[in-house]
């Protein structure tokens, strides 16, 4: 049998984006021994690509803001399907986590009086996003990375985990390989925090990198955790659409936050048409009011004017762009126009530097001189591993999850800026939860030698068989998801999709590679596909089981949002032998004092 190296940590954290780093810092601060495992080099995780900002009700720019409003905005954005307790903790703790980042060295943009500057974003009532130009994620990851490094955290870079081990029902460790040379590695641990991010690579047009292959969702599912809300996949409304090589790359919502205007091929500012009746009051009534709001925002002044319609929630804007195209009013390459060029070029370059360079260098478009072409791109999954709000514990003892791979916080649709804050609030809580668990556990649970052998065998298999190319299989999965479980869904399509996914599983079981184990991306993809298919199937089945449209889940056959049963249940899938079991479980009940926040609005 192949050899492997062994490491022992009280807690291992899988994933080193914002959530994983924050979790590891917390474990280390609580005096436990932590190992941080990342698929890429440290500091390259997907958090680095977050642009617009981190949402926290500091009320530096709009003094009316507070955690209650942030909580309400988050729940409304999530169409009230969120885990209320997560949304509450998130809104309450985000300001402290942001201040903590500042104390650890993050350098946020400032207001004129020297406080942390905040910008407007879709679905947020007040200017709430603390930011650094349009590279907030980089600032966050570098700050956490340096804090972690100086705390002496052990980091395993370019290491992929392929299996979680259990002793009885309890987590006992994990197994994987180093990408560099394919050598195997065993981690003995009392607790595991999953912070592996999302699943975007199951779609063809995505803002997500190669890392987003549903690792945490797959590992947790195999270990017996359940995945909730998987039907809710966020298509960010503004990805690049042209040229083909850059299709899907994100165009930050910050462009709209800074006053960017969406127009169709007829030059119409179409977003007014798509504002849901219930939210219309929060938006400018006409061009003049929207203009007043933008001018005040640029001048750093307060205004009574309401937000431009482009700042509607992401689900809504993505649908609007899709429909404009479908009805023949799209831009030449299947998007719409996003225009910030009416503003002072120097200001645009200062506030949106990486957007300026991205378009200039990759698309030959000067965004200070003309509009960008943008369209929806798969960006984020609201659903994920079901966790307890306070501790981030899954139903598998010793297994915790935080960040994008966890579900519940964002309900049916995530607001921009709520992801970075989610990472640090629940990253910290997962680290604390895992540490408390590990402390009370005492000794290390055991790992069965047979399980290790099986894990090695699984990884070795693609070298010893004939079968399809993993890249071809991944492409087929993309095609299935695009065609049958995309932005707009209907039963007949999804049923075909589910069937095709069943067929695809047979190919995944047979994928084969050549070469050896030294940095072999084809080999890596063979294992990744097994995680990807878990989320693909979970999304398709969950979406097909929800006969209504809500948030990011849009059904052509059920266009309305249900006020009855479907407003009160989460979809949950779990592993049942070889089958995926699907249930609808009741939403956690919101306490009366929080319910009142919503009632006050209705009056």
């Amino acid at each position, binding site marked *: 049998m192949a050899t492997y190296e062994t490491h022992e940590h009280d807690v291992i954290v899988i994933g080193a984006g914002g959530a994983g780093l924050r979790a590891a810092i917390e474990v280390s601060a609580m005096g436990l021994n932590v190992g941080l495992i990342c698929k890429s080099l440290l500091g390259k995780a997907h958090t680095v690509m977050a642009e617009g900002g981190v949402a926290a009700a500091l009320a530096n720019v709009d003094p009316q803001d507070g955690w209650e409003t942030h909580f309400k905005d988050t729940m409304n954005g999530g169409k009230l399907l969120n885990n209320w307790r997560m949304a509450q903790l998130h809104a309450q703790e985000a300001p402290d986590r942001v201040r903590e980042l500042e104390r650890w060295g993050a350098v946020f943009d400032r207001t004129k009086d020297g406080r942390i500057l905040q910008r407007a974003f879709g679905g947020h009532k007040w200017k709430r996003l603390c930011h650094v130009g349009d590279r907030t994620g980089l600032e966050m990851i570098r700050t956490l990375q340096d804090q972690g490094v100086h705390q002496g955290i052990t980091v395993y870079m370019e290491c992929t985990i392929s299996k979680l081990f259990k002793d009885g029902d309890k987590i006992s460790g994990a197994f994987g390989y180093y990408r*560099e040379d394919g050598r195997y590695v065993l981690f003995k641990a009392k607790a595991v925090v999953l912070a592996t991010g999302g699943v975007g690579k199951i779609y063809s047009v995505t803002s997500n990198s190669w890392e987003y292959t549903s690792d945490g969702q797959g590992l947790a599912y195999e270990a017996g955790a359940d995945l909730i809300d998987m039907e809710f996949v966020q298509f960010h409304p503004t990805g690049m659409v042209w040229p083909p090589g850059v299709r899907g790359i994100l165009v930050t919502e910050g462009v709209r936050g800074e006053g960017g205007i969406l127009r169709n091929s007829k030059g119409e500012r179409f977003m007014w048409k798509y504002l849901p009746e219930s939210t219309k009051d929060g938006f400018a009534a006409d061009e003049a009011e929207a203009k007043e709001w933008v001018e005040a925002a640029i001048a750093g002044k307060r205004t009574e004017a309401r937000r431009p319609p482009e700042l509607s929630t992401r689900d809504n804007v993505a649908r609007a762009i899709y429909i404009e195209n479908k009805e023949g009013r799209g831009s030449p390459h299947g998007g719409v126009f996003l225009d910030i060029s009416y503003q002072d070029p120097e200001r645009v370059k200062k506030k949106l530097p990486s957007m300026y360079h991205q378009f200039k260098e990759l698309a030959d478009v000067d965004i200070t001189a003309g509009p960008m072409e943008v369209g929806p791109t798969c960006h984020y999954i609201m659903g994920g591993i079901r966790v307890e709000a306070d501790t981030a514990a899954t139903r598998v003892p010793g297994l915790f999850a935080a960040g994008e791979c966890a579900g519940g916080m964002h309900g049916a649709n995530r607001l921009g800026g709520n992801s970075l804050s989610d990472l640090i609030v629940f990253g910290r809580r997962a680290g604390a939860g895992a540490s408390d668990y590990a402390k009370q556990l005492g000794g290390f649970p055991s790992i069965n030698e047979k399980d290790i052998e099986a894990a090695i065998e699984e990884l070795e298999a693609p070298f010893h068989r004939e079968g399809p190319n993993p890249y071809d299989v991944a492409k087929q999965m993309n095609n299935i998801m695009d065609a049958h479980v995309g932005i707009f869904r209907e039963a007949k399509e999804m049923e075909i999709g589910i069937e095709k996914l069943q067929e695809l599983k047979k190919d995944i079981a047979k994928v084969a590679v050549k070469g050896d184990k030294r940095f072999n991306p084809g080999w890596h993809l063979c294992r990744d596909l097994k995680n990807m298919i878990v989320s693909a199937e979970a999304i398709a089945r969950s979406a097909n089981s929800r006969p209504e449209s809500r948030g990011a889940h849009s059904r052509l056959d059920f266009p309305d949002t249900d006020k009855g049963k479907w407003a009160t249940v989460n979809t949950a899938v779990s592993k049942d032998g070889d089958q995926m079991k699907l249930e609808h479980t009741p939403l956690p009940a919101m306490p009366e004092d929080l319910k009142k926040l919503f009632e006050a609005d209705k009056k």
Partner: protein
Amino acid sequence: MRKAKLKVYRGTADAGEFKDYEVQVEEGMVVLDAIHAIQAKDSPDLAVRWNCKAAKCGSCSAEVNGMPSLMCKTRMDRFEEGEEIRVAPIKTFPIIKDLVTDVSWNYEVNKKIKGFSPAPDDKEWIIHQEDIDRVQEFRKCIECFLCQNVCHVLRDHDRKDAFMGPRFLVRTAGLEMHPKDTANRMQYLKDEGHIGMCNITKCCTEVCPEDIHITDNAIIPLKERVVDEFYDPLGKVIKKIMGTDKKGW
């Protein structure tokens, strides 16, 4: 649709060669797309690092026709029809396989720099934008290590045993110029990071994909500060008295 000819380094540190590939060129394609096309069609085992494909993560550094660059930013239409495109791993770091190099040395250097050290206080920090513009410039760094790759102290003289390199001078400058930082890293810069080994050829600045003025804004001010600290004690006292010792970079 035109085809491009690529020569890509295949192999390890011990043995390797440039292999020929042909790729269909789509509009707007970058070199990283071409590498991915090769991976998907001909060579699933072709090793390359990448993440964001948008010049934000600094993973896909390579030398394209001798020019150290991010492959995700290097457009295929930059090359003439029929021109051979030679893609090699960055030279300064040991090759692991194909285009992937062992950059772990950089992470070891980073560990030695004293981290951000503010004075403890509970009050909200009031910091003015003009006082952090420069620090923010340094914090744009995406750690692509292209500056380390072209620094001749590291590349030609292989002095990784002594010189910290431009990336970590930038990091140190970002800490030293932070208005709330209280630590002093001058001794480290002089005796361990060996800032004196930099002779300001500006190669680092030229390749920085983030346009950080590495030499002018980070290295030269740090060099001046080291000189003040160790070779101009009178000047240092005057600056302290005048209260200009942390400002006026």
